């Protein structure tokens, strides 16, 4: 018996939560945050939808199966280590490139790795929660 109030609140809260989660992820390198907590907050957002509107709605909203996110995360993590090897340095060495856009914003493999961690944490948490939620 999902309560009407909760689902409406969820509809407003979800974007805020997701925004905050990505915000935490991207800021992780300089300010407190990072892949782990970002992933957790992201998972919390979808759990909220799960509770408010039921698991199927949450799965539809996620559009991709949590286990796929899990796998993609792990793959990305390993992939982000490869450029280091390509440069003859040990596996997972950081490699940075300064993008011309936004005043020389720097994009580096550690950020990719952080994103990978985000995906894995999100995937794992949702896999578990959705599995438990399913009747």
């Amino acid at each position, binding site marked *: *018996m999902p309560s009407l109030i*909760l689902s409406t609140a969820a509809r407003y809260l979800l974007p805020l*939560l997701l925004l*905050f989660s990505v915000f*935490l992820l991207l800021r992780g390198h300089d*300010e*407190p*945050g990072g892949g782990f*907590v970002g992933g*957790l*907050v992201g998972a*919390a957002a979808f*759990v*909220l939808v799960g*509770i*408010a509107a039921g698991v199927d709605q949450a799965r539809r909203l996620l559009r991709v199966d949590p286990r796929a996110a899990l796998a993609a995360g792990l793959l990305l993590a390993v992939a982000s280590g490869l450029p280091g090897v390509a440069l003859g340095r040990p596996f997972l060495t950081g490699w940075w490139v300064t993008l011309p856009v936004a005043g020389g914003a720097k994009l580096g493999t550690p950020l990719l790795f952080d994103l990978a961690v985000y995906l894995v944490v999100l995937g794992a948490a949702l896999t578990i929660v959705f599995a438990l939620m399913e009747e």
Partner: protein
Amino acid sequence: MLRALALWAVMPVLAAALVLTLYRIVRGPSAPDRVVALDLLTVVVIGMIAAYEVATDQPVYLDVAITLALVSFLGTIAFARYVERGR
């Protein structure tokens, strides 16, 4: 002076609130009592964070406060849903 005030005046008050909340968590006859107490606990902690930030002149803990606010809301909702289902 402000920093001392924040630390030695406001913190004890919050500490007292903390103890009262814990009393309710432990004794609370029904489950929802405990959930409400836990919710209040979150607010007390947010208060502590705010006081601590002023005391240490460090704004960095605000993110912790946001995360806490977001996430504890979820805890309460989950509890509520569980209590509704009986047990």
